[in-house]
């Protein structure tokens, strides 16, 4: 019974914690310009994330090591510097965009500029990390994040043509604006498969003390939690396809997304959109900050645990303090949240090979995962994902220049 409860909570928190600034806005932009045509990119990203979450969780359950630990031990510190530096740069930009997302929700509610909100938001995030435990950070914000289910409610109320929705799950070439289409494909993949997500997940498995007995819980959380999360992202795109595309609204500013739900749910839709944006981005803010501190601490061999008091892991707590406050400062400088989010999603996608390709080696290392190493299916799937990640890396720069302008 207790295990079932844990499983349910794990799945529910995966759903509640799925959406964030990047996945919301890339889905809105995709639906507003290309209708259902980009649903396949969300499906691909979700399957990719599911795969990486399951494998990073399995690695942690069996070996007791996080992805960061395993990368450093298996490949040495000289190699580890690459994912460390790449991960920190990309995660920092994503962190700034998440703080921007919370600040924007507050700006849309109050009219007070997001630049004034950025530091208080960063401070609130820091306070949660300083005072809270891993369970509070992960489950608390994710349970509140269930408010994002409003997008599914709105999508159902709009009665989409399910045949067309299903057809959107198959990749097709766009009839117009090809550069923008592929730019959004890459951004959606970047928003779905953020390395911080599975880095954070594997650290969470260690924090929660999961072992081999929890492998089935890990698999169920990865498959069910991420699938339902993907459905949430898809719902955002479907609503944008039915509300913005027929009206001809393209999203030039993040704030325009606030018009997504009112035509369907009235004033409640506006309030719930703000709540969804604010809570989802706040949860992501806390998780990314922790993921960065985990990565640094695990890479440099420091003590780390969100469940311990900050003074017991001073370098770990100092790292997240510096990261979150610096990201808050960046957002006070007047950076456009939409441009930053789009850019950071593109960069996230481009950084995927750095962590995805080595996972192939880690998940086949008998010394690390023993009998639980990848079978042919896991290797083929991860291999395919690695190829996609490399293609994304090669196309990211030209697409940023062409589609991002």
């Amino acid at each position, binding site marked *: 019974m207790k295990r079932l409860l844990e499983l349910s909570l794990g799945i529910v928190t995966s759903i509640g914690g799925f959406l964030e600034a990047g996945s919301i806005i890339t889905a809105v932009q995709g*639906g507003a310009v*290309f*209708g*259902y*045509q980009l649903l396949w990119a969300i499906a691909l990203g979700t399957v990719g994330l599911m795969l990486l979450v399951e494998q990073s969780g399995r690695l942690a359950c069996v070996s007791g090591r996080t992805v960061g630990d395993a990368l450093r031990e298996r490949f040495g510190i000289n190699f580890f510097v690459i994912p460390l530096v790449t991960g920190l740069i990309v995660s920092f930009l994503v962190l700034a965009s998440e703080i921007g997302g919370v600040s924007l929700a507050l*700006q*849309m*509610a*109050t*009219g007070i500029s997001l630049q004034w909100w950025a530091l208080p938001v960063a401070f609130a995030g820091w306070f949660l990390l300083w005072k809270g435990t891993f369970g509070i950070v992960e489950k608390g914000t994710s349970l509140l994040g269930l408010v994002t289910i409003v997008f599914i409610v709105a999508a159902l109320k709009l009665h989409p*043509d399910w045949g*067309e929705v299903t*057809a*959107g799950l*198959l990749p*097709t*070439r*766009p*009839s*117009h604006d*090809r*550069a923008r289409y592929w730019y959004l494909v890459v951004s959606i993949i970047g928003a779905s498969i953020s390395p911080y997500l599975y880095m954070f997940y594997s650290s969470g498995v260690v924090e929660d003390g999961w072992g081999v007995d929890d492998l089935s819980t890990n698999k169920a959380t990865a498959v069910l939690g991420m699938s339902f999360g993907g459905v949430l992202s898809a719902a955002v795109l479907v609503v944008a*396809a*039915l509300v913005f*595309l*027929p*009206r*001809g*609204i*393209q999203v*030039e*500013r993040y*704030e*325009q997304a*606030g*018009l997504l739900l*009112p*035509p369907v749910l*009235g*004033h409640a*839709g*506006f309030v719930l959109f703000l709540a969804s944006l604010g809570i989802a981005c706040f949860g992501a803010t806390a998780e990314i900050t922790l993921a960065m501190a985990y990565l640094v601490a695990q890479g440099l061999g420091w003590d780390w645990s969100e469940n311990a008091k900050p003074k017991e892991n001073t370098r770990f707590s100092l790292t997240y303090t510096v990261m979150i406050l610096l990201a808050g400062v960046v957002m006070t400088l007047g950076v456009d949240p939409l441009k930053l989010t789009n850019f950071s999603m593109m960069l996230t996608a481009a950084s995927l090979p750095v962590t995805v390709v080595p996972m192939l080696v880690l998940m086949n290392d008998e010394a690390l995962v023993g009998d639980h190493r990848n079978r042919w299916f896991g290797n083929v799937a991860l291999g395919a994902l690695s190829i996609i990640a490399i293609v994304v890396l090669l*196309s990211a720069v*030209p697409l940023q*220049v*062409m589609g991002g*302008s």
Partner: protein
Amino acid sequence: MNATMPTLAQAELPLREGPPTMSSSDGGARNASRYGWSWCALVPLVVACGVSDPAKQIERAASWAVTTRELAIERGVGSVGRAYTLDLLDAGRKDIRKIEASLDPAKVPAAVRSQVPGALVELDSTMTRAGDAVRRGNPLLLGAAAAAADSLGHTLESLGEQAGK
């Protein structure tokens, strides 16, 4: 703000024709596939042309006109907040001014060259009027601004299509 705005009902507003559809059967898409990814090699050229593409800039302005209309309607029925409405109208006006400043008349097709600047100025003025109506809490003015934005949206969309030909 009166919850029932008398001038413009949402249902009366025309939507762009056609639901979101797949384009796999589209002839243009099939044609495009012949060229595959080769356009990636033309990055500098596309960048040079794409950034200041007048058709896209006009389409962007049309999107702001529609956003203004929707904002006015939603504000009129009390669905969105006052601060949010004013904030987004302000952001839109700034973007329209950017478009005005960056639009190179020499690159705008002759057929629409004389109409685009006027439409942009009118949109800017409509957004200002919508903002004033929100500040004063005047539903009649807001309704009139929504109707003007609706008409401008159609005009700009048509100009964008002509500029893209």
